[in-house]
């Protein structure tokens, strides 16, 4: 199947990514605009009000006051996590502009796959991903217990791909509408994030989801809940080995390296994007509800 056919088969997903961008990224930020209009908030809408990082830190440091004082951010994160339990990480797979942009860049730039990082062992990929997540929550637990002192700090705002995306969008679309964000300033951390998110994680990573796989706490947390949800029989991807012809097409299209060597799916990595379902010629991969064949 060529690129054009893949594009056609997954067109709703790519349209959904454009909608995600328009909903969250300034100067459009339509979802945030709507919320600000309803609540009478005067701030300039931007992706920062749908932060993918900070509220997770607040949960683990027990900062209930922050969670209460920023109800829109808290509601957004709880919404994404709640959906992940019942429907899988569909925010990651269908809406998140951070993941979408790096995935799009990896598809647009025709770099031969031999120059791209691709770990085929899902156990190692999961270990790297949850090593990051464990480190991330450890930092916030230390901050919550006031053990962080002056030696360790938050890795939210300084190391944030959403900020880079927002600033790039301000540079590109700033002429259209007033927008929040500035493309002029690049601190060391923002340069590191740009390189990790778009260059290494986008261009030089197979599938273009290096940031999502290894540096996004919301992605990792969502997948943990998906793993639980899949065991409980909620909406999930299922694999029927009797139908599988071992053509490996699913391995080729999966942006999250979630297909195991036996072609079943690792729910700690899968974002329910359905690229594999759409390409599978025998129908061995399908989406399912209900207890039957729930992931062990």
């Amino acid at each position, binding site marked *: 199947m060529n690129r054009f056919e893949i594009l056609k088969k997954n067109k709703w997903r790519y349209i959904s990514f454009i909608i995600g961008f328009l909903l969250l990224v300034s100067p459009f930020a339509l979802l945030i605009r709507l919320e600000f209009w309803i609540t009478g*908030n*005067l*701030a*300039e809408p*931007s992706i*920062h009000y749908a932060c993918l990082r900070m509220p997770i830190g607040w949960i683990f440091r027990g900062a209930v006051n922050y969670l209460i004082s920023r109800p829109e951010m808290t509601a957004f994160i709880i919404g994404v996590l709640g959906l992940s339990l019942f429907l899988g990480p569909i925010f990651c797979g269908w809406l998140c502009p951070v993941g979408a942009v790096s995935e799009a860049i990896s598809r647009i730039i025709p770099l031969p796959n031999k120059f791209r990082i691709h770990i085929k*062992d899902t*156990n*190692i990929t*999961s*270990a*790297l*991903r*949850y*090593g*990051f997540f*464990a*480190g*991330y929550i*450890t*930092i916030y637990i230390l901050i919550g217990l006031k053990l*962080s002192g*002056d*030696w*360790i*700090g*938050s*890795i939210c705002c*300084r*190391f944030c791909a959403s900020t880079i995306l927002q600033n790039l969008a301000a540079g590109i679309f700033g002429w259209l509408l007033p927008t*929040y*964000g*500035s493309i*002029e*300033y*690049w*601190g*060391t*951390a923002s*340069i*590191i994030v740009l390189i990790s998110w778009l260059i290494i994680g986008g261009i030089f990573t197979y599938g273009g989801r290096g940031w999502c796989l*290894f540096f996004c706490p919301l992605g990792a947390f969502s997948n943990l809940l998906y793993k639980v949800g899949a065991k409980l029989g909620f909406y999930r991807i299922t694999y029927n080995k009797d139908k599988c012809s071992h053509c490996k097409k699913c391995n080729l299209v999966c942006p999250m390296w979630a297909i195991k060597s036996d072609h079943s799916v690792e729910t700690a990595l899968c974002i329910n994007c359905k690229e594999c379902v759409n390409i599978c010629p025998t129908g061995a991969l399908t989406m399912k509800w209900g207890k039957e064949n729930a992931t062990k």
Partner: protein
Amino acid sequence: MNKKVVIAFLFMFLLTISTGVYGVILSNTEPTLFWFAVPAGNITEPKVLRGPGPPINLTPIKVDIDRFTPLKKFFNPNVVEIGTHWIYNYGKKPVILRIELINCTLPVKWDVSANFPFDEKTHTFTKPLMPGQRIDGLVFHWIFEIPPELMNKPIIYQGGVKLIDANTGEVLTFIPIEIVRGELMRGGS
């Protein structure tokens, strides 16, 4: 458990913790965010202002561009960002706050967003900030662009920010701001 899996987990765990440590180091070499509060007077040295909210650390702001990391020096040496998410009124009366950057001849962009009315022309928060209150949802940045001819000067900018009661003109807080080069060398000479 597979040895490689354990190593991968520990590697990323330690890398993440190191990122948190590096973030603190970066905040010393590339300071960007500061706390502001009124009325605090003339801040000539670090001071803690106590009030109904959290204790506010106020400090003179000094950015030494020679302390930037090689990455920053290579890609974006001439742009300095200084900003805040926190402006509190710890005084006893409501105040309409005007912000003034003094002595500034550098090109500077004001990037301000808040759930509080702000007049971009006069740099004034046009609603009174009540005692004990802070400006809600504030994201406030100055982006200074240093012209090439000033890049090698030991003192690039020496001025500060005044937080002024717009009704009376009284300066409630003054925080000095300096953008310098080679602070250590000058200190030793």
